[in-house]
């Protein structure tokens, strides 16, 4: 229905905005950002990847690979996702994480659709791109678990990454169905009970690519902020893996605050080709649902 579609659009667009905004300050510390920008809150490109303003990175691009695979196949296709990842990697993307590269390479050379378990796979690369899988599975919890973990294991196979994906997916489902922040907070408290590592009170300000740091930062700023902008600005000004913390915060805050919550100036600044594709693919994802 319209409400769901609107939140889904906001989630996908919010993710791309978080990616483009955070990419400028990726790898900077909170202090460095403070000195260089004061409070950083405009989409200006640059950063270590020397991006054009509004340009997105691997976070959004890999998510689109998943989305396209689903809409092309008219359903879930892990093989399709892997092929899209491979084509994307060969297209010389602006960036690709080390763990993602390893997994995609294993697929390209050996057709593997799952990497062996590894403790070094607790990066945020699988969580950052899972939105299309969550949209396609909505509102089914079982399918959600199945799909987010399957797509994750293409590159990341670790209990922490799996837990992050499943819980992030369920939070997205709750937000899409209009749940209150308290409802979302209770869900997160379940997660931190089962996985104390993800606890973010007290918040230690760690925002690295380690999925635990990433989610702590996203949760801290998402529950602290009182608007889409506040949540996202707080998150990216933490620095570290800012494009990915930004992308994840953006998809969650987007689903929660809806299209009305997203600042128009950011939507205008976003790569318009990417925006057009997001708008085109989101309703298709929802329609394709089993």
């Amino acid at each position, binding site marked *: 229905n319209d409400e769901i579609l609107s939140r889904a659009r906001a989630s996908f667009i919010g993710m791309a905005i978080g990616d483009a905004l955070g990419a400028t300050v990726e790898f900077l510390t909170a202090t460095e950002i403070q000195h260089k920008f004061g409070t950083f809150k405009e989409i200006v490109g640059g950063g270590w990847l020397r991006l054009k303003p509004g340009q997105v990175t691997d976070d959004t691009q890999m998510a689109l690979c998943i989305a396209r695979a689903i809409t092309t196949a008219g359903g879930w296709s892990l093989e399709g996702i892997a092929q899209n990842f491979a084509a994307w990697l060969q297209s010389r993307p602006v960036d*690709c994480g080390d*763990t993602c590269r*390893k997994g995609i*390479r294993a697929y390209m*050379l050996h057709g593997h659709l799952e990497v062996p378990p*590894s403790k*070094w796979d607790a990066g945020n690369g699988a969580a950052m791109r899972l939105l299309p899988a969550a949209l396609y599975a909505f509102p089914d919890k079982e399918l959600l678990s199945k799909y987010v973990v399957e797509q994750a294991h293409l590159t990341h196979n670790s209990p922490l990454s799996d837990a992050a994906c499943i819980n992030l997916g369920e939070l997205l489902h709750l937000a899409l169905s209009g749940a209150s922040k308290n409802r979302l907070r209770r869900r997160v408290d379940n997660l931190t009970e089962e996985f104390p590592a993800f606890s973010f009170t007290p918040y230690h300000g760690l925002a690295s690519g380690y999925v635990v740091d990433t989610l702590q930062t996203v949760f801290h700023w998402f529950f602290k902020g009182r608007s889409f902008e506040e949540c996202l600005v707080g998150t990216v000004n933490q620095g570290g893996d800012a494009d990915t913390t930004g992308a994840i915060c953006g998809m969650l805050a987007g689903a929660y605050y809806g299209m009305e919550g997203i600042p128009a100036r950011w939507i205008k600044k976003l790569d318009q080709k990417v925006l057009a594709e997001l708008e085109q693919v989101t309703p298709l994802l929802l329609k394709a649902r089993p």
Partner: protein
Amino acid sequence: MKLVEAIIKPFKMDEVKDALNEIGIEGITVSEVKGFGRQKGHTELYRGAEYVVDFIPKIKMEIAVPDELVNKVVETIENTAKTGRIGDGKIFIIPLEEAVRIRTGEKGTDAI
């Protein structure tokens, strides 16, 4: 793991690099070297004067590779670096006991 060392003709570098990128290999360390081999000296124009040099500029590529990728990497370099004419170069496979990614401390194949 192995350290694959390839000595190739300089003009082939971009092509070899691109071919390696196609199979997902990105990390390469390159140095400019001089080669002495069967390919004998050529004449070079330098400051207007022609003179014979018996070394040929080459490119050396070093690629740390997990064992299961070595054959693919060697094959890729062979196919792209080859012209069939003297001086195409060499590929050397050296055992690599350990690798470390300085940024993260990752070791072994996670480091490369």
